[in-house]
């Protein structure tokens, strides 16, 4: 149970990194609160596992410091940091029984026998491993093995944090949900700091209080699921979170505001002010399909667009329209009528965001 803090942390797998691209993790400074459930979300190869291994001490960062509750642990081994980590593929000790596997981290720390016994029994019950507790772990199925791996992560109750590296990859979909709920239960009960790496947005959003989105070695946003949805700080967050992703349209600076490429639309107001500050940057306008409305009649805040297709997906309708060179998606509630021709797209100002060089500016 600890607050985890990074100071000027960066890592490169090369011995002498020179350019930014040499870094698997670019310099970052932030802190994760004690007892929080964090999801680390991002595409494969964005540095999630690297960051996780740095937290646990399996990897020593090329620069910067890792602090647990203000104590510098950068040079300490995982055992000294007293951390638990569960890996993507199950790791079990073949020659031990399931119960011995679960007891292993405690035995290595010379926890008294009775206490070990109590913790193991508790975990066996919680993970529903009773029928196999005294069987050799090597003959079990992949998801049972992964449960054992997770159990070894959960067995110590004094750990600084528990780290999960895509632990549900090998698990069947119906069990995934069950195990995720179990983890949530454990979190509520013991209040460990949990860090959960995943590339599945649903997993991240359902599991975590705070989601950390990583992209190309950088943390591009740290926020609640709602913040990620309503104000994506980076274009990547925009199209990674939400389905379908955020609509983006290239834009440029004109004399009286921000013009959307290939159209007559010009945004003034606070967008124009922000846009002028980033005059040299690549600009784009983003809006979530959920916040887009479609009107059959012309309105002041709407622009005419050509309707391409409509898809009824049961509980909502997906509308695709052409606006100049851009294809724009709108997600409409079930029951809302979609105009057959002459659609007008409504841009609600509070949900229309301006991005400069992929970052949210207004």
């Amino acid at each position, binding site marked *: 149970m600890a607050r985890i803090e990074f100071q000027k942390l960066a890592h490169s797998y090369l011995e002498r990194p020179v350019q930014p691209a040499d870094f698997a993790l670019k310099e970052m400074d932030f802190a994760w609160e004690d007892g929080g459930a964090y999801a680390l979300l991002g595409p494969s190869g964005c540095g999630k596992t690297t960051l996780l291994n740095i937290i646990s001490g399996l990897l020593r960062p090329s620069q910067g410091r890792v602090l647990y509750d203000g104590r510098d642990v950068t040079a300490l081994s995982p055992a000294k940091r007293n951390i638990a980590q569960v*890996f993507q*593929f199950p790791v079990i000790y073949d020659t031990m029984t399931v119960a011995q596997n679960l007891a292993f981290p405690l035995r*290595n720390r010379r926890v008294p026998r009775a206490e070990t016994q109590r913790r193991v029994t508790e975990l066996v019950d919680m993970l529903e491993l009773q029928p196999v507790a005294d069987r050799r772990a090597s003959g079990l199925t992949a998801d049972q093995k992964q449960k054992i791996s997770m159990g070894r992560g959960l067995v110590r109750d004094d750990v600084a944090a528990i780290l999960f590296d895509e632990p549900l990859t090998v698990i069947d979909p119906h069990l995934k949900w069950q195990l995720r709920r179990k983890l949530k239960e454990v979190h509520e009960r013991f209040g460990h700091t949990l860090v959960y790496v995943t590339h599945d947005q649903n997993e991240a959003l359902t599991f975590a209080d705070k989601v950390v989105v990583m992209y190309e070695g950088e943390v591009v946003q740290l926020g609640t699921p709602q913040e990620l949805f309503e104000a994506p700080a980076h274009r990547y967050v925009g199209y990674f979170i939400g389905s379908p992703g955020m609509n983006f349209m290239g834009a440029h600076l004109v004399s009286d505001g921000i013009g959307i490429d290939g159209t007559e639309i010009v945004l003034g107001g606070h967008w124009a002010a922000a846009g002028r500050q980033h005059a040299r940057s690549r600009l784009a306008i983003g809006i979530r399909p959920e916040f887009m409305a479609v009107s059959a009649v012309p309105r002041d805040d709407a622009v005419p667009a050509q309707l391409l297709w409509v898809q009824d997906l049961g509980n909502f309708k997906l509308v695709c329209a052409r606006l100049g060179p851009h294809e724009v998606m709108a997600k409409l509630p079930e029951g809302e009528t979609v105009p057959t021709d002459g659609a007008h797209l409504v841009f609600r100002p509070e949900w229309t965001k301006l991005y400069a060089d992929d970052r949210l500016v207004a």
Partner: protein
Amino acid sequence: MNKTENNKAWFLVLPVVILVAFSAVIPLMTVVNYSVQDIFGPGQRFFVGDEWFRETLRDPRLHEAFVRQLLFTGTILLIQIPLGIAIALTLPTKGWGVSVCLVLLALPLLMPWNVVGTIWLIFARTDIGLGGWSLSQLGIDFNFTGDPLHAWITVVVMDVWHWTPLVVLLCYSGLRAIPNAYYQAAAVDGAGAWAVFRYIQLPKLSGVLTIAVLLRFMDSFMIYTEPFVLTGGGPGNATTFLSQFLATAAVGRFDIGPAAAFSIVYFLFILLFSWMFYTAITRISTGTR
């Protein structure tokens, strides 16, 4: 559901059957044939039943050779397996050192066996051999042609030099095949070096170790060339192992019948022992008892 019977497929196995017949079955049957006859010359042969078997099995010289053989095989297994694992654990895992080490280790395995014997024959000499000379300089009266113990030590050291690399290479490949996540998990679980060895490396090596022990058992049980060159089985009979005993009977004295009977016993013993050993090891590693 009906299965289609197609016996023509058996013809496809025919080439292998012929090959195995000429390479193994027919020679083996020839030996069986010799083992039940007393042969004086062409056309002069008598059926003797199991007499050669009984005589062979009662021969005290054979018993001695057998005990010697067990002692030798046991000794070299006890040295080579732990030593092989230990060396494999200390080998580098990346960089140019890997290929250098592997090539150096493979050298003894690439040498013809009589050359190995000759190398050690020269090496152990006190007048021109580095090993023998060094020992005598240390004040040890080393004489592997006269002292049975010295002869034994020399043969054992030679075999260790010759064959430990095989165990090392097998173990090294086994160690390299262990996914890194196991070591990471062990580090997180707070396991020490011994626990890592005991609960990760050793269990993961059980497959290659089974192969290593079986190969080393069979090969050492049939060892012939190197002691033949090095000591000729002496001094006295001190290093006369089973193969040497057999060769002396068959080629030296031309006792084809007893030699054939003994060959069969020898063959069956190796087969039996290998089978027992294999069964035991696989049972241990799968956890069934």
